């Protein structure tokens, strides 16, 4: 799974969000390292929607502008959990080996 995809799914894990909300949340989660732009975001959202990992939750009009909210589907949550577990296992393995070889953490 690409990092941007992982971060978008993570941003939606706590509840539904609109496009700009996802961008700011992804920036926060990644500590400012990943800054999604609108085009990249909507390409990713389309792909995730086509794979049924996210779905449209609701729409709002705020100051004459349309906001569409997206939510994680059960399939998306399952995939995110599996990916998070995989990353955690890899990270744990890396950290434990670094300790064994006396590397700094």
């Amino acid at each position, binding site marked *: 799974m690409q990092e941007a995809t992982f971060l978008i799914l993570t941003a939606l894990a706590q509840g539904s969000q609109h496009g700009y909300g996802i961008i700011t949340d992804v920036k926060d989660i990644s500590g400012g390292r990943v800054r999604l732009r609108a085009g990249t975001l*909507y390409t990713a959202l389309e792909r995730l929607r086509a794979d049924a990992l996210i779905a449209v939750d609701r729409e709002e009009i705020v100051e004459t502008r349309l906001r569409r909210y997206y939510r994680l589907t059960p399939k998306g949550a399952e995939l995110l959990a599996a990916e998070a577990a995989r990353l955690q296992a890899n990270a744990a393995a890396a950290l434990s080996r670094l300790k064994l070889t006396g590397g700094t953490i």
Partner: protein
Amino acid sequence: MTDSAGLERGYRRLLAWYPRPFRREREEEILTVLMASARDGQRRPRPIEAVDVIKSALWMRLRSGWPARPGQGWTDALAMFSLAGPLFLLAIDLLEVAWPYRMSNIGLFHAYGLPTGGHRQIGGLTLLGQRGFQIALGCHLLIAVLVLLGLRRIALAAIAGTAIYWFAGRYWIPAPLQQFSVSFYLLGAAALIASPGPRRGRHLVNWGHGVVLLMVALAIQLSTLRYIASTPLVRLASGPDTSAYPWASIALVVAAAGLVVMLKMNRYFPLLVLALCYPYLLLVAVPQTSSSNPVWHPTLVHLALRYLPLLLLAAGAVLMAVTPRRPRATASPA
């Protein structure tokens, strides 16, 4: 915000790169995100934003079947083929005209008393001067225009008329490409009969299909040039070195297949294109010898091998279209 109307206009111009159906549904939403992400006082889209939107829009155009990936079934594959098949055939004809086999020594042709018409090339613009080819090209062009206009029945009649012309010997196309004729009459007609037709195809076919078909057409032309070069007499007339052409041709086909997988295209559509190319592939796969040439001396077995699978495929498609389908079983409440 400074000149937000100007900024909005700039963003809308960028969003015009997206496919129309996508834009209809998403333009306002993406615009909201773009406007919210804009810096204070920004008056026009920044280059980095423009690149990002255009990249995303091109990807969306190349992706098969937006929105919600329709057109993954057999019927939609036929609808796509009913539109793309005639255009593909026309592309093959035009490539034959645009990319001839140029000979450097035609003296031996004359020594054997063979006509060259004074031309040093096989294919190319000289084809346009030949009446049989003019008719063939005209017929293919007409069918392509009719499917583009979505005139299914008239296109079907044009295919039938072209087949009659071909059968009567009024229609001529260079030998290797002749192999596409009968396969196209069968599959093109079946696609027009058995599918919702080219109007539906227009909604499903996108740039991605165009790129794939163009790559396959180029591969065919490369392999045709190699085929021409390997015929005994042309070999004597020495032309360009075509030894690398088969590899280039295979590389193009592999790249096209990769694109089909990457863009998640309807899986039946490439199968139909492969079926269209099948008699041609059989021909070019047979080593060229002067005595056993399946083009000039086809036996009944040759013909059956070449056209029976296509006939069965076309008949199967039509049969599936006319057979009423059983409604899907739905779960009954407990």
